[in-house]
């Protein structure tokens, strides 16, 4: 049997992926939108639905960013509510290990695992920044170099709590009056957390809910290899995907783990057309809607840390250089570039070689893994990535809320099923079973 594709659906978050100006674009906040996407993903037999987390609204040049979709609900609350309107779909969400404590994260994820009958997953992230911390009691207290140390100890502590009730602790013997016996206690004493007591949640249907990790740095890869079930990656192309895949899987034996115990799932967008040309034309239009002139300038300003509002997005890149010492102009976005001068030089070279305007350049450099084509071509392509060990599957990010996954489920899923690389129905009840049975 060929390798089976894993699929997750990402509820489009607060960035410029979502094309809010499209007439088909609905609410990003009403529960009915989450329900629609979840039901669609379940209809398509997806492994899980994934929600990101927001802890502070993005700002640009001292103001709240108003050009992208903004505003979203609390992650765990939505996942719990979605458990009511789905029966098999995994429910995954990001919860910061910086602005929460292990006891409450363990309790929330374990609660969702019970409420959903074993479908919960937690994407462990850290945040070092005091800017986000201004919304929390503790503020921004975490040193950058401590990020993974805290995350690792946080996760280990959560797992101790999940394991603290014996599987048979809930006795429920009405006659003899034994409700629970031998509720475990925990003692965790480490550099980050020094806590002890008893957990309030019995062992969950999955025992250990699924753990997801998204780091790309060397420490992030090591952390994932050591302990995660799924890793989200940003490696889009076939070649870089293969490299990442091989690198991460190579790290597993050191922790006594098999290659199949950690699944690699890059994020990907998709555009479907009746013909290949039609799909590419649509993809081009979508990219232009995602990167409007103002968005392009803002994106450049993130790197330049200067006011570039006088520049024309349809004109050439600014002749002035980024200010490497300036405070960031943009807050709340993940910054991947450490050396702005080098980035600017690289971009100038690309723009010059390909004769690109600012807007065209931004479209070019912000492109993510994208599957564009007919349903058959997209299915072939996904299959190629998975069989070629560039990924175990994908986290699909539709560009429309909430109907953006409908066509994928209607048209691409049957193609994958026909190829024998995707389930035609769920064979288990829990997310762990979806991801790891055979």
């Amino acid at each position, binding site marked *: 049997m060929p390798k089976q594709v894993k699929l997750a659906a990402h509820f489009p978050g607060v960035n410029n992926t979502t094309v809010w100006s499209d007439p088909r674009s609905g609410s990003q906040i009403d529960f009915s939108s989450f329900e629609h996407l979840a039901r669609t993903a379940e209809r398509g037999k997806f492994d899980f639905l994934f929600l990101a987390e927001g802890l502070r609204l993005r700002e640009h040049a001292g103001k709240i960013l108003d050009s992208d979709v903004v505003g979203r609900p609390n992650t*765990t609350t939505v996942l*719990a509510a979605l458990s009511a309107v789905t029966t098999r779909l995994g429910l995954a969400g990001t919860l910061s290990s910086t602005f929460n404590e292990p006891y409450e994260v363990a309790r929330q994820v374990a609660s969702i695992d019970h409420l959903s009958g074993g479908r919960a997953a937690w994407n462990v992230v850290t945040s070092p920044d005091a800017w986000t911390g201004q*919304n929390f009691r503790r503020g921004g207290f975490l040193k950058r170099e401590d990020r993974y140390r805290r995350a690792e100890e946080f996760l280990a502590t959560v797992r101790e709590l999940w394991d603290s009730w014996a599987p048979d602790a809930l006795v429920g013997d*009405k006659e003899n009056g034994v409700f629970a016996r031998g509720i475990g206690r925990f003692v965790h004493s480490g550099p980050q957390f020094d806590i002890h007591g008893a957990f309030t949640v019995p062992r969950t249907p999955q025992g250990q809910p699924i753990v997801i990790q998204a780091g790309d740095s060397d420490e992030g890869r090591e952390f994932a290899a050591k302990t995660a079930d799924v890793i989200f990656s940003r490696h889009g192309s076939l070649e870089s995907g293969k490299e990442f895949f091989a690198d991460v899987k190579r790290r597993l034996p050191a922790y006594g783990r098999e290659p199949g115990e950690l699944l690699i799932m890059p994020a990907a967008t998709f555009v479907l057309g009746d013909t290949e040309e039609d799909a590419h034309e649509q993809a081009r239009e979508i990219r232009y809607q995602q990167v409007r002139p103002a968005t392009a300038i803002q994106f450049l300003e993130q790197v330049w840390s200067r006011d570039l509002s006088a520049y024309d997005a349809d004109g050439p890149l600014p002749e002035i250089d980024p200010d490497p010492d300036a405070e960031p102009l943009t807050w709340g976005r993940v910054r991947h570039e450490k050396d702005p001068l080098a980035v600017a030089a690289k971009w100038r070279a690309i723009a010059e070689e390909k004769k690109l305007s600012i807007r065209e350049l931004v479209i070019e450099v912000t492109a993510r893994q994208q599957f564009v084509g007919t349903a058959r071509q997209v299915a072939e392509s996904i299959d190629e990535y998975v069989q070629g060990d560039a990924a175990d599957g994908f986290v699909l990010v539709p560009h429309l809320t909430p109907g953006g996954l409908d066509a994928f489920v209607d048209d691409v899923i049957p193609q994958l099923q026909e190829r024998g690389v995707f389930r035609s129905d769920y064979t288990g009840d829990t997310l762990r079973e979806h991801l790891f049975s055979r």
Partner: protein
Amino acid sequence: MGSAQQLHLGVALDGAGQHPAAWRVSDVRPSALFTAAHYLAHAKLAEAASLDFVTLDDTLALQPGGEEVVRGRLDALLTFAAIAPVTSGIGLIPTVTTTHTEPFHISTAVASLDFASRGRAGVLAVPSRTEAEVAHFGRRTLPSEVDAEAENAEVVDVIARLWDSWEDGAIIRDEPTGRFIDREKLHYVDFEGRFFSIKGPSITPRPPQGHPVVAVYGDSPYAHGADVVLADEIRGARERFPDAKLLAGLSIVLAETEQAAIERRRALEAYAPFPPGPSFTGTPAGLATELPRLAASNGLDGFHLRPAVLPDDLALFTAETVPALQAAGAFRQAYTGATLRDHLGLGVAANQYAEA
């Protein structure tokens, strides 16, 4: 008929009922307490009777007691989130612990419960004063009662500021200007309190009710704030909470005859003493006579009922007491509004940041 005072009625859905031995005599399977189905079934009973709301208790530590009592529970807010989309009328008021939880998370979680329930969310804000919870978090010492209550009131204040930090209509989707939101309608709360500070605005737009209903227990002399006050000690409560909806806590043990109710109570007491606090033991009809009388003589707006055994006492209450109250004109025949604020007659919540 219409001149009788309209009572507000909420029901506690804790464990298998309020009595510690309820789980032994209830038809409910003990393991069901860790499923959504248990809470859904009982919320549906309350909803069919058009009751105002259900509550669910919570703490960040195990319930005290030994192996003979219910111990362990799921997160109350998430449990109610898991029944929100599949109920339609009943208000949902989970307990949230305010001493250890981040106010920012409380605000967005309750707002999100309001979105998932389409305007039926509330929160029972309760401070924690147990060493067990302190040890589970390990980052602060046990607060005094007066400090814990002051912090609770501060949380209640700031979560409403965060709800208001997005004005209604802030999402404009204005294509000509490329603006998804009108940022003039978003507000930093810049809250600096005694216990914490928060920048804001919320990440979550203003919820359907504007302000989901905030409830507190009024039994501590230091308790203040909130739209709804639940209190076992009702003497002097009206003076202390002049503007809140005041609901008295009342445990109920019901049966078709007075004698049968007393026997049910004795059977429970053979296992364990009845929990402290006001209680009623008798017939559903007797309770229907008692409630309006108690409310009138104590200046109460209604009751927070704690069925001794679920579903038994809740089923009798909704099947017999509620129709008797309706016949006496003391309770609504059906929901007249869609939101929990509607049920409680709280009116539209003003936004403290919006220009008048």
